């Protein structure tokens, strides 16, 4: 024991310079964490521009180098690879020698490192339980790295050999890592697996074992190098095996989830999609991408679910094998959380009350996102046959919660279960492209990779989207989501323990509503932080009904009008006139080329052709012999092209072609208009009804509604409830038998969906308000009018959609055909009135001015 301390003191003296550097790094790290040194300038735009902090990076790099170098120096001083080590023939036992080294590392490397963080964390007010858990986890990560460093060093006799070996090994690892990127399942994210820990421990253990054996057998350099390569290979194979050595609770369902085992995975046929992505080879095989939009009944409004596919199989009737591209490549779900955002607005609405107006920009609000089921290579010959898709899915369920609400005043702070929030400051930035309010927030939180809770993992750019930031002004009852947030991580020591994070949400104030506040009044705003918490995971198997691949292949519009410039009528007619018109008896190819050229011109014209335009008649004469060319063109062209085609078919189709047109309905629902106009609805009724299975398009819904068949009410209502919109409402509200249910559906929709205003220069009226107005809900008019009144007066005339929405739902005396599109006149008239001036007139289906 005396010799152990004697050797310890000797090592201490030998490595005093390195230890001094290590101490400096630890103090610098603590200083950075506590903000003594180079606290990030959150007022500057540098954070927005993503500049990293020099000192934080330098301390991190140098600290890690010292962390690995000092143990190496300690080993090299008495390397077991040497046969002439000074102590080999001195009366120093291995126990004392190695005991002294271990004591050195524990007392002078590990302990200070852990204590340094503990000081900071306790100072930050984190609960002792988290701190202890974090300390243990930190040690869990430190030990294998130390073992690796010491084991590797123990293989070499002196510093020169060690340096050469290290450089070679690092080069080898770089090459290996590059190659490993091409190996499936070689991801190193600790987020959902304990395999990286296992990899480190196994590698460190084997390297230490190799060093011990080398001490015994004195192998050559080549043998030692081969041993290291073998270790790397063995460890990597273990890394790739689907074996978890630590209990990763991630996939263990939360009790709340476990209690909801009744969640069935419902996928309506219309929520099953196949997309042809590209033709991959000379055989003409088609690459298909499959996805579904799963429904979860009774999913609470504040929950979101992120589906991912573990495995999929496309099984054709013919038994012909289909190649699945992506088997075994399940995405790391937690890297993609942003895809399932949406429910946060509802949670915020509930938190702030119904009078709050919530503004977002470029947002999307749906509680789930379609789940990709992988890509398949399908031979063209299989397209007409029947197939079935079988998939295993994983659904990760989250719940949005309001984490904290803080006045935007520098120095204000609060703690939650995971750590501390603090407002560092806020700035109202003007100019340089856009105006915005930038709020600097510090988040000190525990980051435990063994906790099983993603909220406790380290904050890094992919997972920091677990937060959403909102500025709320209680005076105007306006809430605004941040458009973007900058993330700066100050974690000294990697991502394994307790990061100090700086989040800088940026709120765009270049809106038509003006700034929420100026620099003097920023303090009246509140910053609300919403957090998405992981609840659990469910696993489901889904099997599609038998379907025909060909029915699902979509072709997109040729998109000739991308420039958004209309072709003049003169040029259109000149070019059209220059095209050689095929005779009715011409070949299919000639007609196809002509139709293609015509549709390009129509798309470029981008306007509905007059009823008496000669083109309709020219095309109509071609329909009797070439109907299938016209039908094929329908889904491939834009609205204006479809209009021309369906008018040509209406005019030219023969009675004998009735059956052919009805049969083509599933592929081109636009034909429903032809069927209606030609009076073939009764005959097409079974086919029209069958469309509900895949979703009825706007073109076919009026045809279905025409029957006023109570048997189809539930399906129509279900379709409306899935995506409520005014177009479908206008059709369905004409069905008297559906009135009660429709009223309930509209009220539910209005009550439950947040009135989120997506504003990007132009106010887009939320569907909940539009449908509410159509249905005559006074509160919808009040809210819509409020939106209008919030816009500054000079800008109101520019809000076309908002004005149109009010115009279409209000009886405006004196409105003529001319001033109907005069937004200046309309804005003036609307501004002269208030929501309370109107009442709903059910007979007219709109709001009218109350009698004075």
């Amino acid at each position, binding site marked *: 024991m005396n*010799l152990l301390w004697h050797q310890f003191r000797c090592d201490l003296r*030998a490595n005093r310079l390195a230890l001094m550097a290590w101490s400096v790094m630890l103090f610098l790290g603590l200083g950075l964490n506590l903000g003594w040194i180079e606290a990030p300038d959150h007022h500057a735009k540098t954070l927005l521009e993503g500049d990293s902090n020099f000192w934080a990076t330098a301390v991190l790099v140098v600290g890690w180098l010292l962390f690995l170098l000092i143990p190496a120096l300690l080993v090299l001083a008495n390397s077991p690879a040497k*046969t*002439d080590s*000074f102590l080999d*023939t001195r*009366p120093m036992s291995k126990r004392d020698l190695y005991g002294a080294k271990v004591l050195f590392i524990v007392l002078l490397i590990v302990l200070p490192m852990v204590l340094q963080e503990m000081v900071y964390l306790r100072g930050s007010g984190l609960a002792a339980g988290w701190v202890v858990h974090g300390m243990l986890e930190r040690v869990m990560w430190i030990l294998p790295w130390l073992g690796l460093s010491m084991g590797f060093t123990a293989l070499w006799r002196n510093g020169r050999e060690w340096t050469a070996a290290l450089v070679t090994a690092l080069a080898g690892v770089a090459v290996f890592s590059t190659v490993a990127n091409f190996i499936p399942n070689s991801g190193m994210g600790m987020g959902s697996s304990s395999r990286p820990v296992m990899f480190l421990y196994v590698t460190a253990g084997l390297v230490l074992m190799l060093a011990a054996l080398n001490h015994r057998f004195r192998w050559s350099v080549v043998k030692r190098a081969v041993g290291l390569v073998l270790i790397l290979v063995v460890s990597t194979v273990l890394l790739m095996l689907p074996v978890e050595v630590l209990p990763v609770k991630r996939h263990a369902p939360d009790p709340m989830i476990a209690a909801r085992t009744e969640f069935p995975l419902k996928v309506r046929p219309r929520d099953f999609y196949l997309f042809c992505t590209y033709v991959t080879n000379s055989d003409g095989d088609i690459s298909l991408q499959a996805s579904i939009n799963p429904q979860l009944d009774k999913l609470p409004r504040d929950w979101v679910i992120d589906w991912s596919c573990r495995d999929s199989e496309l099984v054709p009737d013919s038994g012909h094998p289909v190649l699945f591209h992506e088997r075994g490549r399940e995405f790391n779900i937690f890297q993609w959380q942003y895809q399932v955002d949406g429910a946060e607005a509802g949670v915020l609405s509930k938190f702030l009350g119904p009078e709050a107006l919530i503004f977002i920009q470029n947002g999307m609000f749906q509680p789930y996102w379609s789940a990709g089921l992988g890509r398949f290579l399908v031979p063209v010959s299989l397209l007409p046959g029947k197939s079935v898709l079988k998939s295993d899915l994983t659904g990760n369920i989250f719940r949005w919660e309001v984490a904290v609400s803080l006045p935007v005043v520098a120095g204000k702070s609060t703690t939650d279960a995971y750590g501390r929030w603090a407002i560092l400051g806020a700035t109202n930035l003007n100019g340089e492209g856009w105006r915005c309010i930038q709020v600097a927030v510090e988040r000190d939180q525990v980051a435990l990779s063994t906790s099983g809770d993603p909220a406790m993992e380290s904050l890094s750019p992919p997972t920091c989207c677990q937060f959403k930031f909102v500025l709320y002004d209680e005076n105007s009852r306006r809430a605004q989501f941040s458009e973007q947030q900058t993330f700066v991580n100050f974690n000294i020591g990697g991502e394994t323990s307790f990061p100090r994070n700086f989040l800088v949400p940026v709120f765009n104030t270049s809106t038509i509503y003006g700034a929420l506040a100026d620099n003097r009044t920023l303090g009246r705003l509140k910053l609300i932080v919403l957090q998405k918490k992981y609840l659990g995971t469910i696993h489901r198997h889904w099997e599609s009904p038998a379907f025909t691949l060909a029915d699902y292949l979509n072709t997109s519009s040729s998109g000739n009008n991308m420039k958004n410039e209309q072709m003049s009528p003169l040029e259109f007619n000149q070019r059209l006139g220059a095209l050689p018109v095929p005779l009715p008896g011409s070949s299919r190819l000639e007609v196809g080329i002509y139709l293609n050229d015509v549709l390009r011109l129509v798309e470029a014209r981008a306007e509905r052709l007059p009823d008496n335009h000669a083109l309709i008649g020219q095309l109509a004469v071609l329909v009797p012999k070439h109907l299938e060319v016209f039908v094929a063109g329908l889904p491939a062209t834009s609205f204006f092209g479809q209009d021309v085609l369906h008018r040509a078919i209406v005019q030219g189709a023969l009675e004998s072609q009735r059956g052919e047109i009805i049969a083509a309905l599933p592929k081109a629902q636009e034909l429903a208009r032809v069927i209606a106009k030609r009076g073939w609805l009764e005959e097409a009724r079974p086919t029209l009804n069958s469309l509900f299975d895949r979703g009825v398009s706007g073109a076919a819904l009026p045809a279905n509604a025409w029957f006023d068949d109570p048997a189809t009410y539930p399906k129509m209502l279900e379709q409306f409830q899935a995506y409520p919109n005014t177009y479908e409402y206008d059709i369905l509200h004409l069905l008297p038998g559906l009135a009660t249910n429709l009223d309930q559906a509209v009220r539910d929709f209005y009550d439950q969906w947040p009135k989120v205003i997506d504003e990007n220069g132009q106010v887009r009226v939320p569907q909940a308000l539009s449908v509410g107005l159509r249905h005559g809900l006074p509160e919808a008019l009040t809210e819509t009018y409020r939106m209008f009144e919030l816009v500054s007066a000079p800008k109101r005339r520019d809000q076309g959609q908002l004005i149109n929405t009010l115009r279409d739902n209000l009886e405006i005396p004196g409105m003529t055909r001319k001033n109907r599109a005069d937004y200046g006149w309309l804005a003036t008239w609307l501004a002269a009135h208030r929501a309370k001036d109107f009442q709903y007139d059910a007979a007219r289906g709109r709001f009218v001015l109350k009698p004075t």
Partner: protein
Amino acid sequence: MTPVIEIQNLKKTFRKTVAIDGLNLQVPAGSVTAFLGPNGAGKTTTIKCLLNLHSPDAGTITVLGQDSRKLGPAAFQKIAYVSENQELPGWMTVQQFFDYCRPMYPDWDKAFAAKLAKQFDLPPNTKLKSLSRGMKMKASLLSSLAYRPRLVVLDEPFSGLDPLVRDEFIRGLLELTEEEGWSVFVSSHDIEEVERLADRVAIIHQGRLQLEESSQTLQARFRSVEVALTTEMTLPSGMPSAWLNAEISGRMVRFTDSAYVEHRLAGEVARLFPNSAPPHAGPMTLREIFVALARTYRLNGL
């Protein structure tokens, strides 16, 4: 007397190279044994095996009555080992080095160490890495002698030392061994280095022991013989095997008698060279003996 080192049938190979091939050797207590051999003969490997730095493939080694494989801290408190290849903690000063070594040895004699330091003229405040090679060897030797070991093992201790330092080193070592009665086992590839030191000699060649004897008996049985002939003749057949390196030059025959007995030499000379004068047998230095042996064994470098 119990030998301090006893090696029996030692074998050690490195991959395909046979370093030691059935070596048998005894080092009596109190003796200074020179372990001689050319470079690559197996001297260092033998020493590393006996100090448990290498594991023998076969055979046994007993050091101070203990199996070499089990030599531990207790045994090393009685053994001193100085090697030309041994690394010293260069960052320490001479004094720090001695302070570092001292706690490892309960028998460390501080006064003796101070006396040695003075005798070796070692600068206490100079770092080991700044010392010359000779001074480093002296420091290493001092750190190995200050605890009065029972066995001193020196592996090529004089290699690369300039003659003056080597002489000082040897003189110091001689005085100490005489005073303390230590057993010394010193390897070298140069007989001159150890000639004054050794009272026993062992010669190893290609991993095999060729000779092991005290210097005294060795010098007693070796003679350089010259025989003057009256007429020129060639070397006769049937010469005794103990006559080494016999050669004839004109009317003079020269050889080394490795089993010298005066009357037997005279009789054999008279029988083989009838017309010659009586032989002249002169004593040989150890170096001359080794040169003769070297020529016989083809021991290059001796």
